[in-house]
């Protein structure tokens, strides 16, 4: 009733619908509205790629042949999902933390990022999956032919192979479109996953519909069904125990090791918490999928004619009962099962092939040049994926053609399973045993793969690959090497034998080599990280919280951020956690916060590494280590800067010490100065008081005496006044509070006035002063009164101290380009070199023979004044007598420019008129 065209239209329409779903999902994800795409339900449904056409159609056939044994295929995965907490969560966590893209990537990453292992696992996966893809093609083709034949009364598809090819090509197209749309860092394919979830519903609904129809439509309900089962040929089955266990174990292993399962379970996982839903929902799905398998098989065996392929009962039963609609639904269910498996498997395999085989080769061929242009590589990767998808499907198709599509579906599925589970020892060992090494994994895989190829895979091709006599009697007649009786295990169940002969040596080799091996550092690092992933990585809360850890963390934190701050943070968090003590539970939230705090001090990578070390083992990735190295380099640089700073500090400290020393000296000098001042003041006062008392007390003084003593009092008073003037002067000068009255003046006039002033001083001997009138005629800008004070002092000194018989003072003036030199040279004894520096210090009288009346402040004052005037005064060595040189600038105040041509023009040389 349903023409082939309609069947084709329905199939194509369904495919178009899937395209739409996938497309919509991709769009939603891109626009960020796809939160529902990341629901636990979608995740659980996507896991149903486990249920392929083999389980959809084949399970019924399996049940029709072997009774309940088919259940092991579902019970194994159920047990695995019951172990989600300790096993699957670990896998998913590893996948997320290590950014694993495939099972080959996982194995390679675990074992020191070995590229060789990745290639090996990829090849194994391709070889193990190809028969399975062939199986899907076969089932689709078969179902097509069944429906078409029944519809058109024996009409067969003109070319079964052509159908298979069309299906393969269509699937390749779909996979390429939605599997390689983008190159996500996390390798998630929203469109594909959503389409698969829809297909999961379709196949479940289809199988349940057929089951309900069989139980309540054909049989008379549940109890009738049970009695039918009891009466059926499969009412009792041999079901040998070891085989049952082996099959359960095999399917349990397969759900972890199958590349497509790894893809949906680990790679496409959007949120680790989805696992807790899938943990019960996926077993429930499997239960629902297998619920009606036995009834369908029993009823099929009962009412369908002998010789009907039990693998197709799901289709043929509704057709037999004239339910074309139901048959159509069943067909779509089988179609869904096949396509979803092929799509996911192709994506998983293409990821592996392009990442681990094509890309390394391409990069090597390009000598690494290409890797520098990221956009370029991205395109290359995408093309490699597309080509890989095509190649994988082509391989599947070729396998289908080679095996002729005659094999019972179930046995191909089992061979496939046995192939991919060779990864199991390396995988499980890798995530639970830190001692597992790369060489151990490689050896185990190689052994297992070789045995599987020889004993299971090659024989499946039939005579033309492995001649019948080899199959039966072994190569060269060596019986125990015959694939069917390998190692003398001919007597036991083939399934169990296959597992034993492949997984056994595989595991043994893996363990033994690992035990003997010494792994590379990277290997060991990754081992620690994988095995301890649940303890170390962040997501869900509180795996291993012990007090000791919190204390360790506190100790470390104190070391890094200081005791007070560390305790404050811990106490605060303890309070937030509602704990009375000072130590919080080391929850991930707390550890994360602490890590951030520490990172502020020591850098993120170091902080992470430190925390990881304390929170259990070394969860340090190579990137972490590199980052640590980076930070260490930075810190070394920083510390060298610190060192420089500390050197600078030491220098500053030294300088401070010197300054301190100077201050102490100054303080002593101040004491000495005060003592000196006291002495200088008391000396004239002593004379004054003594003579005043004499004048007051004595009556019989002569007029001469009175006059003389009054004169002494007068002189000493003057001396006192002068001393006070000098002290005041010095203090004002030294404090810099002196105000200079700069003006244009003539040096000649100043010297004149100074000489005249000294002549009026009574004390001291006369001194001949020789001057150079013409040279003195220099104009300069200075404070004439202050300068005169200096000159008076110098002349007075000469008069006082020049010991020559006829003292002569020469005043020599020389004009330089930007300064004036005035030398005062007498014909005395000069000053000894060791005294030349101290004569400018206060109270530094060298000899006092003629020093009466001088406190030794004169030169100190002179130096202060000249310095204020912007010049300098120094003892002039190399002259016959005592010589002082006063150097003056042309203008005392640099900020006050000389007015051009103001007077004689002498001082305005070079100034623009």
């Amino acid at each position, binding site marked *: 009733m349903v023409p082939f065209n309609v069947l084709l239209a329905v199939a194509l329409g369904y495919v178009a619908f899937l395209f739409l779903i996938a497309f919509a999902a991709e769009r939603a994800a891109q626009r960020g509205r796809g939160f529902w795409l990341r629901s636990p339900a979608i995740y659980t449904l996507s896991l149903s790629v486990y249920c392929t056409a083999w389980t959809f159609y084949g399970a019924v056939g399996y049940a029709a042949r072997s009774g309940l044994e088919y259940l092991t295929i579902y019970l194994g995965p159920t047990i695995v999902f019951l172990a989600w907490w300790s096993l699957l969560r670990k896998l998913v966590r590893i996948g997320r933390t290590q950014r694993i893209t495939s099972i080959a990537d996982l194995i390679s990453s675990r074992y020191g990022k070995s590229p060789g292992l990745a290639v090996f696992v990829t090849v194994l996966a391709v070889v193990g999956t190809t028969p399975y893809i062939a199986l899907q093609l076969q089932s689709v083709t078969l179902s097509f032919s069944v429906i078409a034949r029944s519809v058109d009364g024996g009409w067969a598809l003109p070319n079964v192979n052509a159908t298979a090819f069309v299906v393969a090509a269509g699937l390749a197209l779909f996979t390429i479109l939605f599997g390689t749309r983008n190159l996500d860092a996390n390798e998630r394919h929203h469109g594909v996953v959503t389409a698969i979830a829809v297909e999961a519903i379709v196949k479940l609904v289809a199988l349940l519909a057929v089951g309900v129809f069989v139980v309540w439509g054909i049989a008379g309900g549940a109890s009738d069904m049970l009695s039918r089962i009891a009466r059926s040929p499969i009412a009792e089955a041999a079901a040998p125990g070891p085989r049952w266990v082996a099959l359960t174990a095999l399917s349990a292993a397969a759900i972890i090791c199958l590349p497509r399962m790894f893809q949906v379970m680990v790679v496409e996982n959007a949120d680790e918490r989805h696992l807790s839903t899938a943990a019960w929902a996926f077993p429930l799905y499997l239960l629902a999928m297998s619920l009606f398998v036995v009834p369908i098989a029993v009823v099929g065996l009962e009412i369908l004619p002998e010789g009907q392929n039990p693998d197709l009962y799901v289709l043929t039963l509704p057709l037999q009962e004239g339910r074309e609609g139901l048959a159509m639904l069943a067909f779509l269910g089988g179609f869904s099962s096949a396509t979803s498996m092929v799509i996911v498997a192709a994506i998983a395999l293409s990821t592996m092939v392009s990442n681990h085989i094509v890309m390394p080769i391409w990069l090597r061929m390009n000598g690494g040049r290409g890797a520098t242009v990221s956009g370029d590589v991205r395109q290359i990767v995408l093309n490699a994926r597309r080509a890989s998808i095509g190649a994988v499907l082509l391989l599947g198709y070729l396998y289908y053609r080679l095996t002729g599509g005659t094999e019972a579906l179930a046995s191909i599925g089992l061979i496939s399973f046995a192939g991919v589970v060779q990864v199991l020892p390396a995988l499980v060992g890798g995530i639970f045993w830190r001692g597992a090494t790369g060489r151990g994994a490689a050896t185990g895989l190689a052994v297992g793969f070789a045995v599987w190829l020889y004993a299971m895979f090659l024989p499946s091709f039939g005579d033309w690959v492995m001649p019948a006599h080899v199959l039966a009697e072994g190569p060269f007649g060596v019986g125990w090497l015959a694939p069917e009786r390998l190692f003398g295990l001919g007597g036991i169940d083939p399934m169990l034998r296959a597992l034993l002969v492949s997984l056994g040596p595989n595991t043994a080799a893996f363990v033994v080599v690992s035990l003997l091996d010494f792994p590379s550092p990277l290997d060991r690092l990754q081992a620690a990280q994988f095995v301890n992933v649940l303890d170390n990585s962040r997501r869900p809360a509180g795996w291993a919280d012990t007090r000791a850890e919190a204390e360790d963390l506190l100790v470390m934190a104190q070391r890094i951020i200081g005791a007070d701050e560390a305790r404050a943070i811990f106490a605060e968090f303890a309070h937030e956690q509602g704990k009375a003590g000072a130590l919080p539970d080391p929850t991930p939230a707390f550890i994360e916060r602490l890590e951030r705090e520490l990172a502020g001090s020591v850098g993120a990578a170091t902080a992470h590494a430190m925390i990881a070390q304390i929170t259990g083992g070394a969860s340090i990735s190579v990137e972490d280590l590199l980052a640590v190295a980076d930070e260490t380099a930075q810190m070394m640089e920083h510390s060298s800067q610190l060192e420089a700073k500390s050197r600078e500090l030491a220098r500053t400290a030294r300088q401070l010490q010197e300054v301190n020393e100077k201050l102490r000296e100054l303080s002593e000098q101040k004491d000495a100065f005060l*003592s*000196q001042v*006291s*002495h*200088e*003041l*008391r*000396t004239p*006062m*002593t*004379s*004054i*008081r*003594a*003579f005043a*008392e*004499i004048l007051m*007390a*004595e009556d019989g003084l002569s007029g001469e005496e009175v006059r003389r003593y009054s004169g*002494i009092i007068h*002189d*000493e008073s003057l001396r006192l006044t002068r001393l006070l003037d000098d002290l005041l002067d010095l203090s004002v000068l030294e404090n810099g509070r002196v105000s200079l009255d700069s003006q244009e003046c003539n040096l000649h006039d100043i010297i004149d006035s100074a000489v005249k002033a000294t002549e009026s001083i009574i004390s001291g001997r006369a001194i001949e002063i020789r001057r150079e009138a013409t040279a003195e005629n220099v104009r300069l800008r200075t404070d004439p009164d202050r300068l005169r004070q200096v000159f008076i002092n110098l002349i007075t000194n000469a008069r006082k101290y020049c010991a020559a018989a006829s003292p002569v003072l020469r005043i020599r003036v020389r004009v330089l380009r930007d300064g004036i030199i005035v030398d005062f040279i007498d014909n005395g004894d000069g000053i000894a070199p060791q005294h030349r520096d101290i004569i400018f210090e206060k109270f530094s009288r060298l*000899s*006092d*023979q003629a020093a*009466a009346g001088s406190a030794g402040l004169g030169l100190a004052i002179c130096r202060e004044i000249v310095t204020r005037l912007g010049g300098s005064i120094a003892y002039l060595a190399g002259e016959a007598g005592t010589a002082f040189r006063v150097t003056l600038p042309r203008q005392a105040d640099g900020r006050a420019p000389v007015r051009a041509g103001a007077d004689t023009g002498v001082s305005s040389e070079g100034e623009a008129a």
Partner: protein
Amino acid sequence: MPGRVLLIEDEPNIAEAIRFVLGREGWSVVTHENGADAVARVRGVAPDVLILDVMLPNRSGYDILRELREDPATARLPVLMLTARGQARDRETAEEIGVSRFMTKPFSNRELVETVRELGVAAGVRE
């Protein structure tokens, strides 16, 4: 009759005042103004009382006193020390060395005369 006083003082005006004041009391006053040869002068003059300034050219009064005290001939010579640096430390230093009396400048003439007289009496000079 009062005895002989040796005055070692570099300030001529002060020396003149002291000589006048002590001279009026009957002391014969010999003056000396340099520190360098002061000890020799003391030995030469052999005064009954020595008046010694601290701040002397070339040699401090302390040094001179120390040398005098080390010489048995002058160890018990009454010495009046005068200083214009009236700090407590100066007095302590002088007393450690063995000064008889210590006066800071400016001094009162009467006090000076009294002190010298006391020193003279102690030295066995008759009134």
